[in-house]
């Protein structure tokens, strides 16, 4: 049936646009390829220990939790867009929804299935601020599909919300306006061999580190589950390079790197954290961005990007890096390395922009929207943005879309 606005992509920008549209009296459908609408912040963890470090992870998720109960909002998760057609002033989109194996309205959020599931990562419980607020079964890992017929979760579920026979289905949506908010895709650093991602288990990307912290509440080494005593945070991985990455600066990794460093330093004063960066491109003045260091001893910040990560004789990670000032090469031994990876446009953004005939720049970012045909673009699919900026942009574009649909003032 006819909706006012269709938001493609439920990340910070999509959620912000949806919230603004709902408060301006429009009904919204949010289509997202992930199991939960909420985007990358759903996998990120809070970086604050006592004081808030303003990483803005909770801002879009709280907004999603606020708009979740409203009836004028419809969320279609795990949907991959098949075709987009513009007939007259109606935009028709049909998408294929892959099976979730859980009926969201039946789930009462009691959490017993998440406790009962034997395989780590098979049953993904809904994090705070995810829409729909029901778990999702990862078909590759779930023992029901891979090996024996295990249905621990179905046995425990009080409302029989599990339905393993679910098939993927079609969904057709028509709307009078579309907001493209497909966001960014993390850059895979394994293309850059000298960081050793994929070779050494304790070299993790920032997203892996976030998943570990969100799951266990603290950072643990994937190799043996212990807390790392000495770790390095390497900035600009995959960004600002011409070999194995993107040429532009991904803008959010500096803000992210400093906050994950602060979280690790403040939560475990006994572990040593080294922060290796090229340029500090945070948005506050430099003094404010580094004011939290004070006289903490277990934090070292050095300008000079890590050149090489190897396994040292003692089984630790040996990281070669340029040092400040005298531009020599130094090597340090670390238990763990967190690669602060950048972001690049998703393949779906390129396909979608082609469908909607939106102009794209050299890197695949959408460079302009088309208000006449009521097609808008919000968030980091226009250019690298951090969570806060894409949230503001989402609100702005949401209001613009509502204005073009005629808001009664």
């Amino acid at each position, binding site marked *: 049936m006819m909706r006012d606005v269709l938001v493609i992509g439920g990340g910070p920008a999509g959620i912000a646009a949806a919230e603004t549209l709902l408060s301006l009296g429009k009904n919204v459908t949010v289509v997202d390829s992930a199991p939960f609408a909420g985007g990358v912040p759903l996998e990120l963890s809070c970086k604050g220990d006592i004081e808030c470090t303003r990483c803005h992870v*909770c*801002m879009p998720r709280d907004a999603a939790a606020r708009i979740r109960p409203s009836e004028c909002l419809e969320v279609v998760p795990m949907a991959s867009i098949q075709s987009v057609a513009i007939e007259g002033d109606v935009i028709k989109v049909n998408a294929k929804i892959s099976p979730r194996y859980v009926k969201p309205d039946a789930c009462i959020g009691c959490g017993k299935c998440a406790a009962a599931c034997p395989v780590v990562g098979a049953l993904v419980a809904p994090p705070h601020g995810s829409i729909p607020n029901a778990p999702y079964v990862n078909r590759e890992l779930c023992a029901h599909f891979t090996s024996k017929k295990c249905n621990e979760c179905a046995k425990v579920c009080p409302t029989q919300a599990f339905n393993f026979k679910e098939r993927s289905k079609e969904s057709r949506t028509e709307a009078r306006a579309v907001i493209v908010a497909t966001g960014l895709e993390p850059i895979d650093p394994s293309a850059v061999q000298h960081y050793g991602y994929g070779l050494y288990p304790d070299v993790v990307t920032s997203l892996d580190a976030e998943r570990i912290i969100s799951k266990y509440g603290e950072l643990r080494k994937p190799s043996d589950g212990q807390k790392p005593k000495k770790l390095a945070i390497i900035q600009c991985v995959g960004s600002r390079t011409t070999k194995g990455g993107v040429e532009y*600066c991904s803008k959010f990794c500096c803000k992210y790197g400093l906050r994950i460093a602060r979280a690790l330093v403040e939560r475990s004063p006994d572990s040593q954290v080294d922060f290796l960066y090229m340029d500090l491109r945070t948005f506050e003045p430099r003094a404010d961005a580094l004011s939290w260091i004070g006289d903490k001893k277990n934090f070292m910040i050095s300008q000079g990007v890590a050149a090489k990560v190897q396994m040292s004789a003692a089984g630790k990670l040996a990281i070669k890096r340029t040092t400040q000032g005298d531009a020599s090469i130094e090597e340090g031994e670390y238990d763990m390395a967190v690669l602060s990876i950048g972001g690049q446009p998703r393949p779906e953004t390129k396909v979608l922009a082609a469908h909607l005939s939106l102009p794209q720049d050299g890197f695949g970012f959408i460079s302009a929207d088309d208000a006449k045909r009521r097609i808008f673009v919000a968030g980091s699919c226009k250019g690298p943005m951090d969570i806060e900026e894409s949230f503001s942009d989402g609100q702005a574009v949401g209001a613009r879309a509502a204005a073009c649909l005629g808001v009664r003032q």
Partner: protein
Amino acid sequence: MSGNKVCIILSDCQSCSGLSNEDMNRMLGALKGGAKAAHALIVKAPCIKESRKEIRTLHIEGCDRAVVGMWCHPEKIGALNWLPKKMSPSLIEVVDLSIFAAKSTKCSSQVDKYVRVLHASAAGLAHAEALKDRKIPFASKSVVVIGSNDRAKDAAKSLASKGIHAKLISMEPMPGVNAENLEVIDGATTEGLKGIPGDFRIAYSRKGQRKETDAASILLVSERCLSKAVPPKDSKVKVVPLEQFRNYSAGGAKVKGMAFLDDLQTLTTAADPVTPAWHTLLEAAKTAAANHMADYISVIARDVKAAGLLEMLWKEAADAGVKFIRYDDKSRPKISKEDSTISVKDLVLGESLDIPADVIVAPITTRPWEPMFIERLFLPSDWDLKSRLRGPQRGTAQSPCDGIFMVGYAGFNKLLDIAEPELDSAVAQISAFMQKGCHVARGAVAVIEEGKCSACLTCVRTCPYRAAIMNESWKAEIIADKCAGCGNCVAVCPSLAIELKNCTRPQIGAQVAASTEVVQ
């Protein structure tokens, strides 16, 4: 303890609670047993339509309030219009017992814990009183934008284009700004603010007269950031502010060396850092290189903050011949007095260089951020500092008071490039706020007991919403329409003169006692 008016309603969702029938009856017996509730009964699961109707028309004589024990989050059932009609909504407490259930072990061993949780809620609810939130329609239809920079102008214009009557109050004259339903009050300084969201009264003084205007919502737009960077006088170097580089570059003669600085503070002893707009700095450097305004063009910066796609602009400037030099905090660049060069120790190359710099272009922001600006405007007195440290709890531009939005340096101390989307988002939030059309004054507010106040001003200083003020008879008074019911004033008052409705001291004491009691 007058616990007799409370009735505990337990929903017998067998499957969701994991309790067998006789567990449920044992629990009902324990609930009746405690002296906390006058009445306890079991109802069918509220997720079934008929049972919702039945609960709606429930009548329990002698009980005007109820604790409803449920086994899933109320949001799953949808709107809470199925609760007993005869009881005031503020006297019904819905408890989600699934939070307390042990996720893996057998549930029947949990009955005592559930009973204790319900008893604690009942003990607290016994002292509650019926409250109602009041909807106060907006008295004014206009929005006041305060700021004397072109971002404030854009904000006011875009609000006016959205059909909202906008008033722009700016300190500096704003010639030639006229649009349909936009009223410009320039050359005015704001004096103070009173009123509640939707009905603000802003006092301002213009040409010596003190006037007042009404507003439903306020947008504070401040672009300037604090800077006392004074260019060095005794050297022969010419300093061009970055903001005026465009008209300088039109007529500027060719010089031997031109240096762009990220922060003039490095050459002077100014305390506060300047946050330059890197987009304008890189554009200026590129145009300088493009029309050969100097033989040696350099950008001297602590960090080259060309974030995002600006990196491409940096690459273009570098290809056009601009040299980028990074210095360290400890070894700052210095202007030599005799010839016009800047000596700086390059961080990457490691040795110190003498950069020819007949002309220095640096961001020198002129108008300082006015601390008094915030003090007069309803926000807590030390808010101007705190506003920069505010967390994301209310989104990007929202201040603690509904209806007041802050953008640019008023919001976060961010680089000016970021203020663009933030401004549009603030305008979006204002149009959403105006769409609401009414301000909800909470029922559960703090109330000051007559005569107990010793006028110590602590609540006035503490209240984040500026709802506590001193009235004419020099006693504290809490404006009920502004209070958000956080209770911080209740805890700081030295004379225990303030009490928060439905969260009073006896209620918390009763809940603490009930939860530490051993259930038989």
